[in-house]
């Protein structure tokens, strides 16, 4: 199998796959690719063979009369049949489940997500399960969702910027829209993608596999990297677990810091560590699960991402209780 259907680390074929429905998508992509490979190898072999066998040379003439045969018709019929099978037996059912059957379970987690240039805003109903009303005319820098704070349902609502908290093992039902331009709510590790279109509210749903918490991901992805293995690109999102010092005891790579934010910075840091004689560094991912934006939305489209924190179900309930306590100042760090 080409797909990784367990946690795996990033960087091989598919990204890690942590959702319940995602495995079907990966399976479909795999079988289509096996089919494509088969066709390409068959065509390609014929092609190379023909180029050699029918090259122009002394004593060899081309044939005006064209080759006849049933093989090409049979092959074409098989191709069509296979495509039909994939369509009807795999793609249509997966798509239907993904699109037609919103979850109705009692413990489903409902979240509203609003995209804006260049953040993801998340709105949770809180323990009362009711969303406070929102109004575009109430939107200010300190109230980016335009929540009507006066309404009783809003009292325990949770509003977050670029933080998406969800539990494992329960249906997650997200209603997605946008304030300004088209964005696209995309969680690669959950095989979720849905355009966020202003003027429309579009639901998307998924369920996280049991055990696939952020904590577990972080644990999977934390390890020692030998100095020669250090590569700014691969490790840009990893931070040091300890402090690393140079020969005079000066800290050159502090705990919680990453290798740098540009290629030039990254290379400099790696060179520093090498010069200091550091043999290996232990790195952990800063935020192993991300929600990103998949539709061009302006000059900072590439930076529009939210951290996704996956809890166990009980941890999640704790988090909701804690977070929804009315707080004196809800501070948003600006746009």
């Amino acid at each position, binding site marked *: 199998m080409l797909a990784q259907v367990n946690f795996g680390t990033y960087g091989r074929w598919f990204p890690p796959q942590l959702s319940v429905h995602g495995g079907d998508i990966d399976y479909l992509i795999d079988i289509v690719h096996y089919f494509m490979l088969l066709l390409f190898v068959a065509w390609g072999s014929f092609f190379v063979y023909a180029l050699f066998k029918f090259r122009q040379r002394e004593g060899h003439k*081309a044939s005006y009369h064209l080759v006849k045969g049933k093989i090409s018709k049979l092959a074409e019929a098989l191709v069509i049949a296979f495509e039909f099978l994939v369509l009807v037996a795999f793609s249509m059912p997966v798509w239907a489940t993904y699109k037609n059957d919103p979850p109705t379970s009692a413990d489903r987690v409902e979240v509203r997500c609003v995209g804006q240039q260049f953040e993801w805003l998340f709105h949770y109903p809180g323990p009362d399960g009711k969303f406070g009303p929102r109004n575009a005319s109430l939107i200010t820098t300190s109230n980016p969702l335009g929540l009507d704070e006066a309404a009783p349902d809003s009292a325990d609502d949770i509003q977050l910027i670029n933080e998406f908290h969800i539990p494992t093992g329960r249906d997650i039902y997200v209603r997605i829209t946008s304030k300004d331009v088209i964005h696209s709510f995309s969680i690669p590790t959950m095989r979720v*993608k849905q355009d966020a279109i202003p003027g429309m509210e579009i639901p998307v749903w998924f369920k996280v596999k049991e055990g696939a918490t952020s904590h577990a991901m972080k644990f999977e992805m934390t390890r020692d990297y030998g100095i020669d293995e250090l590569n700014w690109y691969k490790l840009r999102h990893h931070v040091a677990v300890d402090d690393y010092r140079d020969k005079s005891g000066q800290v050159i790579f502090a705990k919680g810091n990453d290798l740098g934010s540009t290629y030039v910075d990254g290379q400099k840091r790696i060179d520093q560590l090498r010069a200091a004689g550091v043999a290996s560094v232990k790195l952990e991912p800063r935020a192993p699960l991300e929600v990103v934006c998949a539709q061009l939305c302006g000059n900072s489209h590439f930076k529009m991402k939210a951290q996704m924190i996956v809890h166990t179900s009980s941890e999640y309930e704790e988090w909701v209780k804690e977070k929804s306590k009315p707080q004196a100042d809800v501070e948003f760090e600006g746009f």
Partner: protein
Amino acid sequence: MAHTHAAHAQDHSHDHGNEHEHHLPFWRKYIFSVDHKVIGVQYTVTALVFLFIGFSLMMIMRYQLAYPGSPIPVIGQFLGEPIVGKTADGGYVMTGDGYNMFGAMHGTIMVFLGIVPLAVGGFGNFVLPLQIGAPDMAFPRLNMASYWVFLPGGLLMLASFFMTGGAAASGWTMYPPLAVTAANGETMWLLAMVLLITSSLLGSINFIVTTVQLRVPGLSFFRLPFFTWTQLVTAFLLLLAFPPLEAAAVMQLMDRVFDSSFFMPSGLVVSGVMQDQLAGGGSPLLWQHLFWFLAHPEVYVLILPALGIVGDIVANNTRKPLWGYRALVHAVLFVGFMSFIVWAHHMFMTGMGTTISTFFQATTMIISVPSVIILTCLLISLWGASIRFTVPMHFALAFIPMFGIGGLTGLPLGLTAADIHLHDTYYVIGHFHYVVAPGTIFAMFAGIYFWFPKVTGRKMNDLLGKIHFWPSFIAINGVFMPMLFMGMAGVLRRQFDQTEQLHGATVHGLTLMSSWSAWLLGVAQIPFIINFFWSIFAGKKVGENPWEATTLEWSAPSPPPHGNFAGTPVVVCGPYEYSVPGHERDYLMQAGKMEA
């Protein structure tokens, strides 16, 4: 070049002012010319310059992609704001806006200013009347108008870089509300598109009427060269698909300039500011439908002429007829028809219901069938052949597996469930570039090497041609194959810095490979540029038919005079009568005789 009475008699489209063609002043003979051959060359040269510009934009972007945040060497200082910003140590780093501008313009320039004018305006104009035995297009002045609307459109598009706000930066797809609210050159883009689309519409009418009306005696439809068929279907696609986009472009212009709301919904809040100057009530999805209604047939406009060129060159260099000529013709007709009912496969992620998305998924699967048939016919045409590895044949042969990869990678994208993972990733970019770059552009090169002798009377140098081919072929695969893997890994499109997202950072090595391959590909074009210009003046002189080909253009002098043929060719056979048993020569000209 005697201008005989017979030639004059058949030149119904001649204006009395052109009766004594050698008396035309320079500006009427070479600038505002009504001769399809001059217009074809004008289109070709202009399109090649635009292709070079579009490619250069990408070569610069590739530096930012490979080394995010690094100052751009050598050229950085010339790019100016807002494309680059100066760093503390005096380097010029690309900005997010600059990257998006280059990206949007790369796509627009390559598709609308490069490939279509070259494939249709260039090759179509020059070759089609010759292949049907006509003295010119049915409407020569309309033809001239078509070029002279295209050129200002193209120049306006490029000029947008130098205007306040820079060029458009919302993708070649220009989705509102971003494209309407952006403070960049989107307005210029829309105006330029109105000109470019108008040019295409004028041209397509001409091609259809010419092909239907001006075929010489004996040239029935099923004796047409495959190239002519593909140009005919392409012209229908342009004619029927472009008008909705032209209308949509005007609507978006209204939205941008007059605050109308064709595409702008109510309640928009941009950067914290309520957009209550807008009427509201519009739909961003309306633009997407109108855009893709054109843009899907548009991609068949990009590939069909290429298939036609490859077909003609394969027949010529296998010294036998194409296998499955009828199947090929039916396939291109079917593809043309189907191309109008697949457009929403670009919109699967917009919240489409299952019924409609299933319809489009099914039509998308169906449209892959004629493409498979065409490719298979081209492949089986190699069986029983005597293959001459001329320079055009190198490119035509390379086209075949490259188009295979491009076409096959369309399959997972057309399946809605698979598209959830692959939509808007580099897999899409890899897919369409495989079809257009090592696909169509290679076919364009093949066509240039093939018809250059007809246009100039001289052949291009073979050694330089091979030196152009091999590094190009290797480098172009080096650019686009990694993208298919990057897409599988989840790397998204239009990312100024791919390493910002975790799944992008881990596969950055593939981006490096693409970037270095792209620069190598740029260098590999130098032999072609040298060869092209040098051969115009010093290439080996050839006669009418240096390739020993059969179709009508090879019965005219090289280059053909005004009016093309000495008499009226009369067609006596099909287009690919090669290696006919019982004949001394291994080819029979389609023009059996020339009537006075």
